[in-house]
């Protein structure tokens, strides 16, 4: 599954909640939809009565009383009621983190997601990109930030949308009831390839989650290879970090375990040697405007060696 599936499929992911923090949002959506339908029906009936009804009905509809009641009192009461109902239902979605909760800091960047896993004291244990791993059946606190412009994280099946605003930290809770892969998408236009800014959330069984966490926290242990030489010689380390090697750039995604990611290019491509080579050679053809330049300077052999090196960073 890629992030492009965030909005596709049947039932529509947005109406198919998979956790307790998405459920209330869907309920509110259905209630609003139902209320809208009721109001529309009333208006249509009133219009029909005004056009075709007996004289007595039309006289009533034309009175000032109806304007006050139907045009003022009714919307005020109904909309206030809906607002209070919606806020009660969703008020727990943004509560600050409690001790012991899993915390993940997600920073929106043009046009990818920096994902930092926080330890108990709130420091960053390690960094990853473009996917969020969570244990199932436990609330996870996402601290949303932005590095440049406003982005918005939207994981339709797990939570409502929440903006990522430069200089602010917004809290979004999510929980997956079952292990699985959930697609997400940037939901606030953030320039150029905004539509290709996706993400996947992977909910693991608890034991698999612990194993993933242990693996992810370790530095990479690449063997000397042609691909490692190409990586160093092409200057990839100026923008990318591979923990355990000399590469320590911060501008782009951490690549320490890129081989274990499901997707490439922020949720848009499957991840294998073919797409890795394609991305390095000419990411501009795949995601026009993204910050990584094309590399028309690598030979076929070097490109393959580099793709093999990256794929092996599991």
């Amino acid at each position: 599954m890629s992030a492009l599936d965030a909005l596709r499929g049947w039932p529509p992911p947005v109406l198919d909640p998979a956790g307790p923090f998405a459920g209330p949002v869907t309920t509110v959506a259905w209630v609003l939809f139902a209320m809208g339908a009721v109001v529309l029906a009333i208006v249509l009936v009133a219009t029909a009565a005004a056009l075709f009804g007996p004289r007595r009905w039309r006289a009533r509809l034309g009175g000032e009383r109806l304007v006050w009641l139907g045009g003022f009192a009714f919307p005020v009461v109904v909309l206030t009621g809906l607002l209070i109902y919606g806020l009660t239902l969703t008020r727990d979605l943004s509560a600050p983190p409690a001790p012991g909760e899993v915390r993940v800091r997600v920073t929106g960047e043009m046009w990818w997601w920096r994902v930092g896993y926080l330890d108990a004291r709130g420091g960053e244990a390690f960094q990853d990109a473009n996917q969020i791993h969570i244990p199932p059946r436990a609330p996870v606190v996402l601290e949303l930030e932005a590095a440049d412009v406003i982005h918005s994280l939207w994981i339709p099946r797990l939570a409502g949308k929440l903006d990522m605003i430069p200089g602010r930290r917004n809290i979004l809770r999510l929980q997956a009831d079952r292990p699985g892969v959930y697609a997400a998408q940037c939901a606030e236009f953030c320039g150029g390839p905004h539509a290709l800014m996706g993400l996947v959330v992977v909910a693991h069984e608890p034991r698999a989650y612990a194993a993933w966490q242990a693996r992810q926290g370790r530095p990479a242990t690449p063997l000397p290879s042609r691909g490692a030489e190409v990586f160093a010689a092409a200057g990839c380390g100026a923008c990318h970090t591979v923990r355990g090697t000399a590469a320590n750039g911060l501008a782009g995604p951490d690549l320490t375990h890129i081989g274990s990611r499901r997707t490439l290019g922020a949720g848009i491509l499957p991840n294998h040697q073919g797409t890795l080579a394609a991305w390095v050679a000419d990411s501009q053809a795949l995601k026009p405007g993204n910050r990584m330049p094309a590399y028309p300077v690598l030979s076929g052999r070097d490109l393959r060696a580099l793709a093999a090196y990256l794929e092996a960073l599991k």
Partner: protein
Amino acid sequence: MRRWDGLCAGASAVILAAGLLAACADKGLPPRQLAGADPERGREIARRAACGACHDIPGVDWPKGRTGGSLAGFASRPLIAGRVPNQPQTLVRWLRDPSAIAPETGMPAVPLTTAEARDVAAFLYTLQ
């Protein structure tokens, strides 16, 4: 007697010519059938594996990469990647590990099983 020889010679010539023509016809239409392979399944596999990350593939909307060149008209190309004869078995081997055939190629081994590679090859032979 001489007339009989002439007739024989003529008949042989006709048979020979027919045989040659038939041979030519055989060579003109190389069999590019892959028994049991399904082009439609192949198209779906090519889409899922994102072959389009490097190739512009008719029938696959996105992506449209530029690294490997367009695959439009692949069925009528005499060579694969300008290097080896465009024959089904070679193509299946190429799809699974191009560098075993052409060490200088930039195309990495794509994670496809032989059955999947056969489907993709069948799909590529639909690109007239």
